[in-house]
């Protein structure tokens, strides 16, 4: 999943970016509200984590303008915890509200829930034939046998599973699974899918030549 973190505290941004990447997410981060809005409008993110007190453009303004163009899920991260603040954020289009300071585990749980919601998936389990994925535990089994996957491999599998039955293009995979470090002309996606298929040992991932992949 690809996340956009718009947070003006450098230290907090660093910690959260590191933690979310460790948790298997692709994270783009910015310290500026206006830049964050541009990035959100220019890319398809699965979730935007948005601070409210931002330089150049405050978070609520970013949210208002974003909602004119996109329906990307937004999780507000802020120190403002009063009921009016929460109500205002939710009414302007935020999907969730987390007050600083917070437990990182809670942030992860909310990110996971919102990412599932991005794909209209409300439960933490995805079943596709013999494949079963526990989205909360980030564990996969095939025919009941646990499958050992690296974080990136799991992210790929999860992304395909959440879009089960849909054609997922290589570009979409690049955007959602890999951050800016991927070379535009590399075959990293194909390689990753190949490795994934071997580990799953069950034919759940179909190739649509020249188009992309479908799980299910």
């Amino acid at each position, binding site marked *: 999943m690809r996340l956009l973190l718009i947070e003006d*505290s450098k*230290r*907090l941004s660093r*910690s*959260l970016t*590191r*933690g979310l990447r*460790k948790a298997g997410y692709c994270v783009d981060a910015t310290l500026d509200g206006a830049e964050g809005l541009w990035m959100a409008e220019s890319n398809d993110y699965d979730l935007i984590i948005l601070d409210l007190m931002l330089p150049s453009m405050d978070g609520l303004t970013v949210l208002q303008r974003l909602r004119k163009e996109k329906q990307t899920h937004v999780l507000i991260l802020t*120190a*403002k*915890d*009063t*009921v009016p603040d929460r109500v205002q954020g939710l009414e302007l289009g935020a999907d969730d509200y987390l*007050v*600083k*300071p*917070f*437990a*990182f*585990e809670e942030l992860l749980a909310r990110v996971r829930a919102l990412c599932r919601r991005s794909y209209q998936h409300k439960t933490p389990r995805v079943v596709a034939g013999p494949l079963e994925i526990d989205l909360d535990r980030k564990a996969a089994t095939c025919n009941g046998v646990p499958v050992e996957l690296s974080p990136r491999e799991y992210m790929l599998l999860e992304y395909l599973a959440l879009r089960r039955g849909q054609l997922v293009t290589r570009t979409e995979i690049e955007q959602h699974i890999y951050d800016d470090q991927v070379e535009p002309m590399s075959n990293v996606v194909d390689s990753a899918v190949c490795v994934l298929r071997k580990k799953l040992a069950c034919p759940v991932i179909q190739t649509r030549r020249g188009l992309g992949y479908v799980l299910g």
Partner: protein
Amino acid sequence: MNSIKRRLVLALFGSLATLLVGGSLAVYVFTRTILLRDFDAMVRAAERDTLSILMQAVLEGAGEGGEILLEMRRDPPVYIRAWTKEGKALARSAFPHPPEFQFVPATEDRLLASVELPLGRSGRGWIAPRPLFAVRDRPPMESGSVKHVRPGGGGPAPGSQGRPEEIILMIAADTGEVTLALRRLQMVLVTVGVVMIAVVIAIANVVTSRGLAPVRQLADQASRIDAKTLDARFPTQGVPLELLPISQGLNELLARLQRGFERERRFTADVAHELRTPIAELRSLSEVALKWPEADPATMASFRDTLDISLQMQGIVNGLLAIARCEAGTQVVARETVEAAGLVRKTWEQHQQNAAQKHIACTLDLPETCSIATDPGMLQVIVGNLLANAAEYTPPNGMIRVNLSGNGGGFDFRVTNSVTNLNQEDLAHLKERFWRKDAARSSSEHSGIGLSVSDAFAQALGMRLEPALGPDGALEMRLCGQAPKSPPATGPAI
């Protein structure tokens, strides 16, 4: 007791008493002077008459060989005795009981302010040398005879030679009526004075009470002002001039206090708010590092400490913010029906082990059910804080007693625990922010803000949090107040 009213009344009493006593004394002295002057004038007139009569008598030879008796009918009666210069009795007033006047060789007029008269009466008169015709020229009388002489006689008898000789005349009159009049005057003056003083004191009490009524109103209004009503102001219209500076001064003081409190509230809220992001940074940094450990154990231990510190700071910040909101009246209170007995039992389970490890004897006296309409989150905070403190601060082998009752719309929750280091003076500080008995603040696990938050929440819920030390030295924390069984019909108060 220092009392303006008492001082005013005493001053009025003193002034009036002084005036009355002085005035009465003046009236008495003046009246006495006048009366005695008139009396003396009367005696002087009687003296002149006496001399005239005596002269006639002597010239008629009435005193030859004996004392002349003078019959003088006057009111008041006048007592007379006359002697020759040598002390020989010459004349006296003709009373059945003659005056026992003694001869005194007076050389000048001398007032006799108090003279003993016959029949125990008192008198006042004069003794004086007076000139009279020569006694030896008087025609002879039979020896031992007394000649009565009445006034009305004329001048010297024909044939007398008329040479004046000095006699000593003592004359006095009965002062009974004068004395009686003065005594009556005394009684009147004293009676009137006492009555006037009593009346004036009564009037003074009423007048000063009424006069000081605005001061009492000012005091009543001041006693109703507390930290939550600092926007109140004393009236400056229609106030007595003497109190206007006080009203204005108090209003200025209230304005300064209000600004101070608001500054403190804003400061508390601002500080807490500003600390949230740095605390979030610390917390996230340490939680991410602990979740994906990459460093050596010592570094990981540091991250754990960092996380603990950030959690502690977060608790303080949240507590400060909660207190600031309660004081500002902006704390949201969402009332719903809460099963308080169940809440207490469940909360106690979290601290039971801590108490058991210290072999503390615990007693829970809880009803089966106890439903009240309150904010469950806030009640949870209070109950949790009280039980946590009890489990934490009760010494090993001590006791903890938890009581709950909710009869008749009242809520009474008590946590009693044995303590070793608290005294009566400490009770006043227990609910102060950051107060800790240990002045060195050695324990890093407690910041001393829990009871402040509990107290602020209690007040927001319309309850009271009251500490007390029992006769056995145990500390009792009591949460009590009115607690309806169900929320208001219009829905939860927000």
